[in-house]
């Protein structure tokens, strides 16, 4: 299996190398190379998945590694750690990636940098797969950075657009801030345990080699990486901007896979989160879920709505990891990957159609703006129906995947809150449930505005048409994967996936922290769990439906006048529309501050450091007897500090060479007398 995993991992790399160097000269600009590579990876990972499912062993794991760096006192091993989590994740990644590769044939058709696009996609697949497969934090960190670079390259793919270039840069730098925490976390771990290997770390923590405050710190620091990559508050600002990238990229990287890497990392590291760390994770996740959802309501850019939705959903997952609902969080990761990728592909299809139409009618404008759309359902039936399925899934409507996973999360948070004495923990389920209403609301707002109602721009509408098969087939595939039974097999009960293969295979790993403390970190009683599940189920269905109904009330039936309503809550509306001004605040503080600080330092460098002794020279000048001479002093090509003084002295000393022979003799005699006097004293 390790060999298979190796192939899964390396095939996209090979495709990348081929495409980046000779892709341009290959037939079809080499897209088939990348597609074939990721297709092969998909097939191979399906084999793995098949084996895992047939094995049906929750504790299955494989580990193989070799020395990468061995310096005696410092070793780094690199290897694969393959367990159910990794296999399912790998399958998901290669599947989504494959679908998006296929989709891009249609979407990116005719782009001048077509081959480069595929090369980047391959590189991304490679890095993402590596991130999933590596057995150690260091390797994960490496791949983490690599996916970041791919993300940078792909966001800035249309690099002639300033906004795209800015977005790419912003994404990378904001991620780097998170990675900074990640790196420090790595250092803490290595400092205490001397290893990066996940298995060793788990054992060592179990033995208590890293505990207390440092353990919490390590957990939070590593989580910082996840905050950056999964766009959690307060580092969420990059993801909406990242929508400047081509839509398939948004679907692959900024919805399904890379942004989920943070969640995956938390899943991988769940064993080392202390209670405090978990609470940080949970509250940041929960807050983000709600916070991002409130922004999504007011956005008019179709992709931005989805971007905030992604942030919100990732918040859910993170929150799940924080409260220990590990399985639920991961489950949501998988289902979310499907429907969110689908949503993006759907939006891509719409944007594709709109922009083509715009081109045809010679209209300038933003193809992403939903205010220009409306009534597309007749023109784009496949897009419309798949989109509705995804929306139902994300809103948490029964019979769709999202319902199962979201419900599991909400149930988990509720159970957690119930099992804690402090009522403040009830905030978490409240975040979740409120976000659920809003989610349903904004999703259907989006659908209604795009596909229903009257076309806003008649002429534009005329030229909209359904996307080609290469695009619709992946969309349909993903829509299919949003159906509930995929995840509940072998059972077919629509209300819960507890008996499904996925939740069976992914069970909470043994928490090293719990072992170390000798007791469970938090005790969720079975009663609480059952109660929470049942109640959570009901509440979430009701809330989801409420959200949908509200959306219809606002935008379809227009029973509530949107304008009037927004007038009423104007301040809130403006806040949400402007994303709570985070970009502006960051821009005014950190970015501006940094630039000003740099200017100060550069000035300092030029004027102070270089001029320090220079300055000393000037001071000397003031005290110098030969003041008059210095006045004409021009730094003759040599601003060099020491020289300033020495040259100054040079000028001064020359004054005694008057040309008068008697002065010379006098000088010599005085010198002699001076020496005699000085030495005799």
């Amino acid at each position, binding site marked *: 299996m390790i060999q298979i995993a190796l192939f899964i991992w390396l095939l996209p790399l090979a495709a990348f190398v081929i495409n980046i160097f000779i892709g341009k000269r290959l037939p079809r600009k080499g897209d088939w190379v990348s597609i074939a590579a990721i297709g092969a990876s998909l097939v191979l990972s399906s084999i793995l998945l098949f084996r895992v499912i047939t094995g049906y062993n929750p504790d299955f794991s494989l580990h193989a590694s070799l020395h990468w760096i061995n310096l005696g006192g410092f070793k780094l091993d690199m290897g694969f750690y393959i367990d159910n989590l990794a296999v399912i994740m790998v399958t998901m990644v290669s599947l989504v990636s494959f679908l998006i590769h296929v989709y891009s044939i249609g979407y990116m058709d005719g782009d001048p940098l077509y081959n480069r696009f595929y090369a980047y996609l391959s590189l991304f697949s490679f890095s993402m797969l590596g991130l999933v497969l590596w057995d150690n934090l260091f390797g994960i960190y490496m791949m983490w950075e690599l996916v970041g670079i791919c993300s940078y390259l792909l966001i800035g793919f249309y690099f002639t657009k300033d906004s795209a270039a800015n977005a790419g840069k912003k994404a990378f730098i904001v991620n780097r801030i998170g990675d900074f925490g990640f790196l420090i976390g790595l250092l803490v771990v290595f400092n205490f345990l001397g290893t990066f290997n996940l298995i060793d770390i788990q054992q060592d923590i179990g033995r208590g080699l890293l505990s207390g405050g440092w353990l919490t710190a390590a957990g939070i620091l590593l989580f910082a990486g996840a905050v950056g990559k999964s766009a959690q508050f307060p580092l969420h600002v990059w993801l909406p901007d990242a929508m400047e990238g081509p839509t398939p990229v948004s679907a692959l990287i900024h919805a399904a896979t890379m942004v989920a890497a943070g969640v995956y990392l938390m899943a991988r590291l769940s064993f080392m989160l202390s209670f405090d760390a978990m609470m940080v994770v949970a509250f940041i996740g929960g807050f983000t879920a709600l916070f991002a959802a409130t922004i999504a309501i007011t956005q008019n850019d179709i992709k931005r709505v989805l971007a905030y939705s992604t942030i919100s959903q990732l918040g859910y997952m993170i929150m799940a990891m924080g409260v220990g609902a590990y399985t639920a969080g991961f489950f949501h990761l998988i289902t979310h990957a499907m429907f969110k990728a689908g949503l993006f592909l759907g939006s891509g299809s719409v944007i594709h159609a709109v922009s083509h139409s715009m081109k045809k009618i010679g209209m300038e404008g933003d193809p992403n703006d939903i205010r220009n759309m409306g009534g597309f359902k007749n023109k784009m039936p496949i897009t419309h129906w798949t989109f509705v399925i995804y929306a139902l899934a994300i809103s948490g409507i029964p019979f769709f995947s999202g319902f199962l996973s979201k419900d599991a999360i909400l149930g988990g948070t509720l159970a957690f809150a119930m099992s804690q004495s402090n009522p403040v923990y009830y905030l978490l389920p409240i975040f979740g449930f409120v976000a659920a209403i809003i989610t349903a609301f904004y999703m259907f707002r989006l659908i209604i505005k795009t596909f229903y109602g009257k076309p806003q721009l008649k002429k534009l509408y005329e030229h909209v048409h359904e996307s080609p098969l290469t695009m619709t087939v992946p969309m349909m595939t993903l829509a299919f994967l949003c159906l509930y039974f995929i995840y509940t097999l072998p059972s077919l009960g629509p209300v819960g996936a507890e008996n499904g293969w996925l939740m069976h295979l992914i069970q909470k790993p043994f928490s090293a922290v719990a072992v170390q403390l000798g007791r469970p970190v938090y005790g969720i009683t079975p009663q609480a769990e059952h109660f929470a599940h049942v109640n959570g189920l009901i509440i979430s269905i009701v809330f989801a439906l409420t959200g949908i109904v509200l959306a219809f009330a606002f935008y379809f039936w227009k029973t509530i006048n949107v304008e009037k309503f927004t007038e009423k809550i104007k301040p809130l509306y403006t806040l949400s529309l402007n994303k709570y001004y985070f970009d502006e605040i960051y821009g005014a503080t950190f970015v501006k501050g940094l630039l000003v600080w740099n200017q100060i330092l550069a000035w300092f460098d030029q004027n102070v450091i270089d001029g320090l002794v220079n300055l000393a020279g000037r001071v000397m000048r003031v005290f110098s007897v030969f003041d008059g001479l210095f006045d004409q002093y021009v730094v003759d090509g040599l601003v060099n500090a020491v020289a300033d003084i020495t040259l100054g002295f040079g000028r001064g000393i*020359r*004054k005694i*060479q*008057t*040309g*008068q*022979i*008697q002065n010379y*003799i*006098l000088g010599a*005699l005085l010198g002699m007398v001076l020496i005699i006097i000085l030495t005799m004293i």
Partner: protein
Amino acid sequence: MIQLPSFLIISAIVFTLGIFTILYKKNAVGILMGVELILNSVNLNFIAFAKYVDVGINGQLVAIFIIILAASEAAIALAIILSLYRERATIDVTLVDEMKD
């Protein structure tokens, strides 16, 4: 009875006079005379020391040699001064300051 210090004082006075002559005469020949004064003070010293310290003729011999040296020096110096006079029509040393920093 004239003792050694008397000679030394005289010679020191002559030496000082020589130095001041050198420093204050504008005329090159005058400066040369200052040099001669110093050399004479040297001679005085040598002779005095030869009489009072080193009983022999060493000091006297030195004095004779210095007289000869002074003469040859004067000859060369006057030649140089003459040459300068031909070029510049002056032997005022304060005017000879073309070269300086």
